[in-house]
């Protein structure tokens, strides 16, 4: 299954003596950036989210140019409408789970909002977090925290979900619990996913397209 437009990324960025030089295009519903630690995967996600301003690059998503250093285009992160799920969750400690989930929703509603059918109830049901809505992040297990982080990103009505090793901090049992949720998410929601991981099992279950990264460069590409 592929979508009409897709994501087009071309980046050149130096971090110390490490250079990222990558160009790829994908229109898959679930693309994985796969590679060992330190191969530059997270840097690519940061550039797409606007958390990093690369030396040179161009990023186009569904026809919308969100970065073009040659033309001086840099859309700030809060206008890129990407949902970012961080490896470490990054839930807001001063807010309840419900308030965390609705944080991005508030800003999405101030924009033109599209009806993607992702209401609070739908997302909460999909992720199985009904019972923890009034708790604070400090009282959650690692698995619960990551599920809330995924829900928070989804509810911000993103055009694209960026997932940065969302399961890496979890033990095997928790991973097994969340992987089916991610698969369901991929099949139910219309939001394309860019998934970063160094875990073959995860990538093979979630991704339809796999882009291998090595030393800041694109290696092979697998399609399923």
């Amino acid at each position, binding site marked *: 299954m592929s979508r009409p437009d897709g994501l087009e990324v071309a980046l050149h960025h130096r971090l110390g003596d490490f250079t990222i030089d990558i160009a790829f295009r994908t229109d898959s519903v679930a693309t994985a950036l796969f590679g060992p630690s330190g191969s530059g995967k997270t840097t690519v996600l940061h550039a797409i989210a606007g958390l990093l301003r690369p030396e040179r690059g161009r990023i186009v998503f569904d026809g919308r140019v969100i970065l073009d250093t040659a033309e001086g285009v840099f859309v700030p*992160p*809060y206008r890129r409408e990407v949902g970012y799920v961080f490896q470490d969750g*990054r839930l807001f*400690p001063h807010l309840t789970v419900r308030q965390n989930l609705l944080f991005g929703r508030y800003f999405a509603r*101030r924009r033109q909002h599209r009806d993607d059918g992702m209401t609070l109830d739908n997302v909460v049901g999909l992720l199985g977090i009904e019972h923890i809505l009034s708790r604070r992040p*400090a009282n959650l297990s690692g698995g619960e925290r990551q599920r809330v982080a995924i829900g928070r*990103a989804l509810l911000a009505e993103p055009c694209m979900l960026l997932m940065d090793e969302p399961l890496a901090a979890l033990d095997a049992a928790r991973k097994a619990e969340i992987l089916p949720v991610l698969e369901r998410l991929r099949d139910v929601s219309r939001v394309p996913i860019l998934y970063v991981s160094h875990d073959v099992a995860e990538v093979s279950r979630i991704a339809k397209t796999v882009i291998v990264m090595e030393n800041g460069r694109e290696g092979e590409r697998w399609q399923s």
Partner: protein
Amino acid sequence: MPADWLSSEEWTAVRLSLLVASTAVVASLPFGMLLAYLLARGRFYGKTLLDTVVHLPLILPPVVTGYLLLLSFGRKAPIGAFLADHFGIVFSFRWTGAALACAVMGFPFMVRAIRLSIEAVDRKLEAAALTLGASPPFVFIAVTLPLILPGIIAGMILSFAKSMGEFGATITFVSNIPGETQTLPSAIYTFTQVPGGDAGAMRLTLISIAISMAALIGSEMLARFVGRRVSP
């Protein structure tokens, strides 16, 4: 009704002290937050110098700080004359001057507490808020501010405590005028200078102790309440 075990001048000194200290804290808070933010996050030329100037009242003898205030904010001094002519704000020999002296003396404590709390904020949380669509001002209001609230409260308490006890800079800058600039410490000092003033000094001393303890206990409770809400 004033308690009849205090004379009206003593009561006035108590009220004036509370007014001066509260005004000093509230009026210096915006400046304190701005400077704390600059010192915690800013990268600019002269940052070390700014840091030193902010901390200067901590190290200088209070009399020197008071004298410097007199030189700059007195009725005929450059800043003082400007503020008086254009805004009608007069500091010299007024209670507002006492508040200014207290604000300056408490400023290093306030800035330090807020600065430390800003430095302790996990900036990754702010990045997360940006990706969720919050523009930088919203990130500050919805994420940074609630997280540094305990630091802000601590800074206000420290500044208030310093203000309640401030003596040297105040008496140098605005003198010791009953009903206008005579705060608790100045009133106690006056009592110790006159024969038979021991009883009055003791009464005001007890009040000082009571106010200090109430402020400490209150702040401790507030800090605990807020801390429970924001601790990760």
